């Protein structure tokens, strides 16, 4: 199946390992990724803090470009990009005033948008089966961290998973043979949107999440959100410095673990790109 792939600014930069691992597992799972032609930044999280039109128009342009590329589904792995794209499509179909504004601005007419917009977990959750698991992740204890963007608010995203206790990633981990520990911080906000402007808030949020993860006995945090992964992985040293903690907790994308379980070599999954190196942990469990 052809899927329009919107990497957004983060997947070609700070979330490179998510891009690498998605590309590595897609084709064995029967997905052909087609990059959205000439995509632009979706504007999250500044456009929706500064104006109504651009917060709609920037992601809408991407959805329209994807629609033209002949794909049935669209995925934006970064949850911030996903949310903006999802809402833009909704507005494109339901908000005639905004649509007219866009048509006027670009001097073009647009029909209804029908491409199915899915988040990164949705794209993979029904495709991974036990048949794909060549090397079960036995012995690996994880906490699954969904972050806030994929499941909240439930009025909009309730169709996907529970806003307080989501299960989709837990089910994938069960399938891969890893042990998912239940913990209370599955959807706690990591404060990534404040990481440039209120770092004290960001460090505290990261500290709390890492502390609960460590206390729950997990070897690693499994993430689906680029912003969460960046924040918890890249800023772990800053947190340790600020609070005198000694966290050394790898934060791994669920797509990287799917890849490992499928028997794809670790270097093809971007496992060398992390700030907190997950390789010693994976080697100790004979998984790398």
């Amino acid at each position, binding site marked *: 199946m052809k899927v329009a792939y919107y990497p957004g600014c983060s997947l070609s930069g700070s979330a490179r390992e998510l891009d690498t691992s998605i590309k590595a597992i897609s084709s064995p799972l029967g997905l052909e990724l087609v990059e959205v032609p000439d995509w632009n930044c979706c504007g999250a999280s500044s456009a929706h803090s500064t*104006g109504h039109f651009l917060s709609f128009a920037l992601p809408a342009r991407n959805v329209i470009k994807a629609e033209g590329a002949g794909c049935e589904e669209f995925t934006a792995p970064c949850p911030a990009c996903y949310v903006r794209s999802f809402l833009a499509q909704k507005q494109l179909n339901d908000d005639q005033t905004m649509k007219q504004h866009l048509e006027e601005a670009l001097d073009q007419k647009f029909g209804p948008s029908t491409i199915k917009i899915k988040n990164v977990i949705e794209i993979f959750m029904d495709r991974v089966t036990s048949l794909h698991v060549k090397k079960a992740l036995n012995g690996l204890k994880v906490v699954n961290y969904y972050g806030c963007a994929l499941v909240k608010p439930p009025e909009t995203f309730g169709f996907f998973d529970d806003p307080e206790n989501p299960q989709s990633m837990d089910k994938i981990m069960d399938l891969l043979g890893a042990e998912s520990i239940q913990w209370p911080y599955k959807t706690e906000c990591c*404060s990534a949107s404040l990481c440039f402007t209120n770092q004290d808030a960001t460090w505290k949020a990261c500290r709390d999440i890492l502390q609960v993860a460590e206390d729950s006995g997990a070897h690693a945090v499994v993430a689906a959100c680029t912003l969460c992964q960046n924040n918890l992985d*890249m800023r772990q040293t800053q947190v340790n410095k600020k609070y005198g903690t000694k966290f050394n907790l790898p934060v791994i994308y669920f797509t990287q673990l799917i890849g490992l379980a499928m028997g794809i070599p670790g270097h093809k999954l971007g496992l060398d790109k992390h700030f907190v190196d997950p390789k010693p942990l994976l080697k100790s469990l004979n998984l790398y």
Partner: protein
Amino acid sequence: MKESNVSKVLHKNNAFLEKKREMKEINVTQALAKNNAFLEELREKSGQDPGQCFQCMKCTGGCPFQFTMDYPPNQIMRMLQNGLIDEVLDSYTIWTCATCATCSARCPRGIDVAKVMDTLRVIAYQKGTTVKGRNMHIFHTAFMSSVKSHGRLYEIGLALGINIGTRKLIQDTDLGLPMLLKGKLSFLPHKIKDKGEIRKLYDYARKIGE
């Protein structure tokens, strides 16, 4: 158990009560009459009605960033009900809300509180009332101008713009080199081909004032 110094506590609370007594009197009827149009605009743009709030405080109880706010989310709802618009738009709360929408998920009245905050932020940004949210104003302006120039985000340019604007020159410089070495940051901006289209969107946004 922690030793508590009762006279100290009382002294602190007396100061609080004193401050409370000094608070200015508010004529709710007048405030509402003055700001009715604004409240109508807020309801229309956010699709939410703060009037539905009955102060259960679940939003504030679950808010991960309440400790950074000058008014907790439930108070913002109450202030909106009472027409205290200037106070709300001048608050730090609207800028330090991370839009995680935990409040929206838990509100028994079905108010998407995060959406209200988002809409208030847009209005404050456009009115230029961003004294307490100065850093956020600098961040969002630098971000939007980066997208305007390149069609995509130029991270190094953005970080530099923020550090210079907020006068925190060394913020996050510890992350720069490792990111470059891991190929997570690029010196040059990524550009899209059809920058003209992006320019058209920005021009149109300015034209309609949105």
